């Protein structure tokens, strides 16, 4: 028997899924995240699951892990004491950033303070030209001087970022050598390793963040690994990256530490992609709505949309990550009437404390959850864990006081209004992720998860003319399974830039060969058999002088085919192609991946019952309260077909269906067909 574990640490819960591969049987453990010492909950959950399955630790043949240690280190500024070596004349590159202010009108808004204070930025004599030729040799004395100063200052980790190092890493590498020789305990991150692309601020910021995260990640991951080993686990944990691949501990606490800091939603997206595929959908908008935020992702032709530019806490970050739009709209978003009389929802949130008024934990202000309670979408009297029982009266009082009263409307009208407004904000996010890429939302199915996603999904899809809503099995399972389905991934880039007219197929093939050798090195480091690796070379192309590039797959057909593919892609995305115009290649990216050990989905855990209806409850439908059946999802047999209006409850989310039909598919997905 082959057993694997996927363990995802979220802000509130740690979800762990033990999967028996041949039978598809799962053992699922959900336990509160132990903030500040995540390893405790992870190890506890692993031991619990092994006990449930009745197997020994050494029977495990896989352990995939998603952690928020890096994210938390940034949010709480608890990374290592970091220094920066930079080309002379540019010590303020982090402080200036792109010279923009944080808010157009709010004079008090500020960019975050750099992770390296100015006193720990050391200027190094050296200079490269944009093509990588040496304009001024590396002044090694300035490196040695900086090292002495760093040692005195108690620096733990150093980032090295020199101008134009993407074109020639020699100076950075030599400086790193000197550091290693003089200060062997210092951890080092060099920008040409972390991100070999032009744009000194973003490259330096990403490299500094990598250096900043290396020590805390190493501590954490070693602690996990050591505990697992002493428990008898013999496999090495694989760590989730924000781009949806896994990597070994050594890589995750070294050159790719920064790749873990936006990995939170990645596992869920991989799980979502696989469940959607099983249901027969390759084009999907995913929506994940929780207590404080609404995340929108996109799967196009079975591929999860990836981007290479993002930010965390106001710091730019250039690593591959799933392209997810996050809005401050969640169940806890607070509704209020502004000074002009307009109904606003968010961005302020009641969060977990005090939480929505209906939770009775001290919240007095009306939230989106309270609106859902008033309209019967969250059943009054229902226990939702943590000793919380839904209290409609408290919800109604809050909405009456802060919205219905001031607007002179009924509590139900106000609740409908709150949902309409928050839905409008979320529709805007779903529209953005599709139409900004020249895609039509109505051509996509929507997969809804998170505690509040299925509550709102049907209404959102009606606004967007979407035909199908998919509600996968529980969100926790989605993440756990997602980790087990994650491939090994590694990207390398090359700055071959210039007009296609001046380039030959062999230029590009040579550049690809160089990147392939780098990928072979990384695969060897990560103990991946290169024979299993799939390579996808992509050219970033644009019309000469244009700002945005489009990624075009390089095929054996060569440049002419790539140029034609670019014209077509431009036509598709922007509505026009300029066939007479010169085309520039700005970068070559080689994405490598090795398949996950398994592609199998778990069998649904259903105890089908003749009477899956657990209650009848009033639900606001088309302007009036109507008695509707409430189903327990765990009791819905595969193949069940239901006609709304109805409510489906499960322990961690609730689905509202009004005039639609619902089917349970063979993987446990709920498929809702919207009326046209």
């Amino acid at each position, binding site marked *: 028997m082959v057993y694997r574990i996927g363990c995802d640490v979220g802000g509130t819960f740690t979800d762990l899924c033990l999967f028996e591969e041949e039978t598809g049987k799962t053992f699922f453990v959900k336990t509160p995240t132990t903030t500040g010492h995540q390893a405790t909950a992870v190890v506890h959950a692993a031991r619990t699951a092994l006990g449930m399955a009745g197997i020994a630790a050494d029977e495990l043949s896989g352990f995939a892990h998603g952690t928020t240690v890096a994210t938390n280190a940034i949010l709480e500024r608890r990374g290592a004491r970091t220094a920066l070596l930079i080309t*002379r*004349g*540019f010590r*303020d*590159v982090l*402080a*200036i950033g*792109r*010279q*923009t*202010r944080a*808010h*157009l*009108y*709010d*004079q*008090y808004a*500020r960019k975050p303070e750099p992770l390296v204070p100015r006193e720990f930025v050391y200027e190094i004599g050296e200079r490269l*030209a*944009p093509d990588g030729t040496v304009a001024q040799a590396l002044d090694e004395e300035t490196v040695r001087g900086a090292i002495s100063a760093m040692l005195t200052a108690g620096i733990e980790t150093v980032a090295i970022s020199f*101008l134009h190092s993407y074109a020639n890493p020699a100076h950075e590498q030599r400086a790193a050598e000197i550091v290693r020789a003089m200060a062997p305990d210092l951890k080092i991150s060099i920008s040409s390793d972390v991100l070999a692309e*032009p*744009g*000194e*601020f*973003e490259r330096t910021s990403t490299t500094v963040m990598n250096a900043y995260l290396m020590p805390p990640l190493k501590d954490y991951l070693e602690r996990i690994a050591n505990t697992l080993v002493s428990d008898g686990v013999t496999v090495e944990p694989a760590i989730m990256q924000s781009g949806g691949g896994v990597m070994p501990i050594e890589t995750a606490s070294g050159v790719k530490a920064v790749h873990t800091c936006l990995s939170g939603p990645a596992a869920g997206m991989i799980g979502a992609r696989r469940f959607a595929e099983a249901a027969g959908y390759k084009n999907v908008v995913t929506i994940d709505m929780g207590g404080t935020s609404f995340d929108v992702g996109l799967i196009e032709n079975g591929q999860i949309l990836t981007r290479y530019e993002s930010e965390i806490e106001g710091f730019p970050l250039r690593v591959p990550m799933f392209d997810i739009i996050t809005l401050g709209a969640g169940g806890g978003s607070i509704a209020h*009437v*502004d*000074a*002009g*009389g*307009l*109904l*606003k929802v968010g961005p302020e949130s009641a969060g977990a404390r005090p939480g929505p008024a209906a939770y009775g934990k001290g919240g007095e202000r009306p939230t989106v959850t309270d609106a859902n309670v008033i309209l019967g979408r969250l059943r009054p009297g229902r226990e939702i864990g943590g000793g919380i029982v839904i209290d409609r009266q408290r919800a109604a009082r809050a909405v009456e006081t802060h919205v219905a009263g001031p*607007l*002179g*409307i009924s509590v139900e*009208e106000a609740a*409908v*209004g709150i949902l*309409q*407004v928050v839905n*409008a*904000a979320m*529709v*805007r996010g779903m529209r*953005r992720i599709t*139409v*900004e890429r020249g895609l039509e939302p109505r051509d996509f199915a929507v997969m809804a998860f998170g505690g509040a996603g299925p509550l709102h999904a049907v209404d959102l899809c009606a*606004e967007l003319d979407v035909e199908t809503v998919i509600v996968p099995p529980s969100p926790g399972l989605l993440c756990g399974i997602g980790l087990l389905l994650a491939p090994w991934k590694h990207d390398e880039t090359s700055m071959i830039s210039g007009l296609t007219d001046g380039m030959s197929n062999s230029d590009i093939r040579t550049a690809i060969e160089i990147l392939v050798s780098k990928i072979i090195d990384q695969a060897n480091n990560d103990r991946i058999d290169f024979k299993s690796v799939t390579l996808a070379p992509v050219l970033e192309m644009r*019309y*000469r*002088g*244009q*700002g*945005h590039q489009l990624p075009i797959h390089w095929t054996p057909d060569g440049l002419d085919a790539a140029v034609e593919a670019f014209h077509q892609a431009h036509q598709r*995305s*922007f*509505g*026009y192609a300029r066939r007479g115009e010169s085309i520039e290649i700005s970068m070559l990216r080689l994405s490598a991946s090795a398949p996950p050990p398994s592609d199998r989905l778990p069998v649904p855990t259903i105890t089908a019952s003749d009477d899956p209806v657990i209650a009848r409850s009033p639900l606001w439908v088309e302007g009036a309260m109507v008695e509707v059946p409430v189903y327990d999802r765990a009791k819905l047999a595969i193949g069940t077909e239901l006609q709304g209006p109805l409510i489906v409850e499960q322990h961690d989310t609730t689905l509202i269906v009004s005039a639609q039909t619902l089917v349970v598919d063979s993987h446990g997905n709920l498929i809702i067909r919207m009326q046209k």
Partner: protein
Amino acid sequence: MKNDTILAEVVRHGLQAVAEEMGAALIRTAHSINIRDRRDFSCGVFDAKGQLIAQAEHIPVHLGLIAGVVSRTIENLGEDIAAATMVVTNDPWLTGSHLPDVVVIAPVDAEDGRRLGYVANMAHQVDLGGFAPGSLALGTVDITQEGLRVPPMVLMRNGTVEHSTLALFKLASRTPDMVAGDLLAQAAANTTGARRLAALIERTGEERFHTAVTTLLATTEKRLENAFRALEGRKGQFSDTLEWHEAGTDVDLTVAVNLTIADGTLHADFTGTSGQVAGPVNAPVFLTASCVLYVVKAMLDPDIPSNAGLFRRIVLKTPERSIVDAAAPSPVALCTSITSQRITDALIGAFNQIRPDTPMAASTGSMNALILGGTDPATGRSYSYVETYAGGQGGLPGKAGASGVHCHMTNTANSPVELIERAYPLTVLDYGLIDGSGGAGEFCGGLGLRRTILVNADSVLTVHLDRTRHRPWGVMGGSPAAGSRITIAAEAGERHLPGKSTTRIKAGTTVKMETAGGGGWGSV
């Protein structure tokens, strides 16, 4: 009526999405760094009466300019814009800005031909001719010297480009391909916006849409009125100095403003401001209105929606033929980069008296523009580098000013050093904050910036600096900041250039820009 406020907020999200999609389309299709990376543009959505109902804001100075541009253009045409026709103009007395800010407007019609609304965007084009590369020359006395000035002309008809119009822009420009590319990107953004607005109106229903928009503007007005009523009867008066140079001598121009809040309305009277001059620091009155809106938002309500409702509680009075209400054909190239910042400082000074307990110190006070152009010896093609430099923010009650950030009327991103060196015959020798350049105070002013560039081609240099003699002021006993300056060094030695000047320089010259910090808050 009360229920309309819910619908209005729902529709506001839809409208904002339209404006955002226009912005995204423009960024993705534009050719120039100026638009795609520095985001020197704004997009607006309008109702059938030409009233601004939503805006995607990147540049505060555009706020009040975009707002009235549709109605002014229609008035200028003498008739409404024909169906399926996009109109382009850069006339400062329509756009409110300088010549490089080009506006493209598209009508949005129902299938039966009824007018539903308009979309428009304003974007800064790299070069439209004139004395110097960048079309922001000094030494002009008349707008005809500044470059191409285009009245409302047809750019697109039934989805097809009007080639004569495009050719006009190309002929006038030193960077014809760039201008054509950006102009078509502006049109593409409008195509996107028009489609989205029509779909939004159809989804909402025309009548409900109309109700929602009416409510949206009314609630914005109400929100502003309430903010003013809390300050009812207060007055403030302030004047600040704009540096000018005439017939070989330094001249100080005055921007004076009297603010009065009466009956929930702000009255801004610029009587006492200097008359227009024979040089490009004059501003069309719409720009002055834009500054008033900015200061109101910044001082009172940063998150209030930007729409026509804002204008209903503001009464503006400006002396004719003054630097805050210039008449054609006076040159206006520096109105956005310099004059707008001085108008803003004067307004903030006056607002400080309206709210004497929470004053703000003056910020860097200029957009600190540097424009270099010539022929790149490596490619043989002409190049045009335009960039505005940040400075220090003034100290605030309880908070030091930020260092090295764009303040007030602009917020464009810088060009990365590595991209500058890849794109232009320029080498950046250093780029950093200037220690000690912020005004001292309990909450000190932010620091200004220094950037030194080695210019590797014979070039024409234009600079727009202010606050070289009159430094950004402090408040509550805080000190003024260090001023700005530009220095060039070549074989012949080193010299400071006048803050507003155009100069020919030889390959091998280094240019050092130093921007002013922010004034300090409170005595130390």
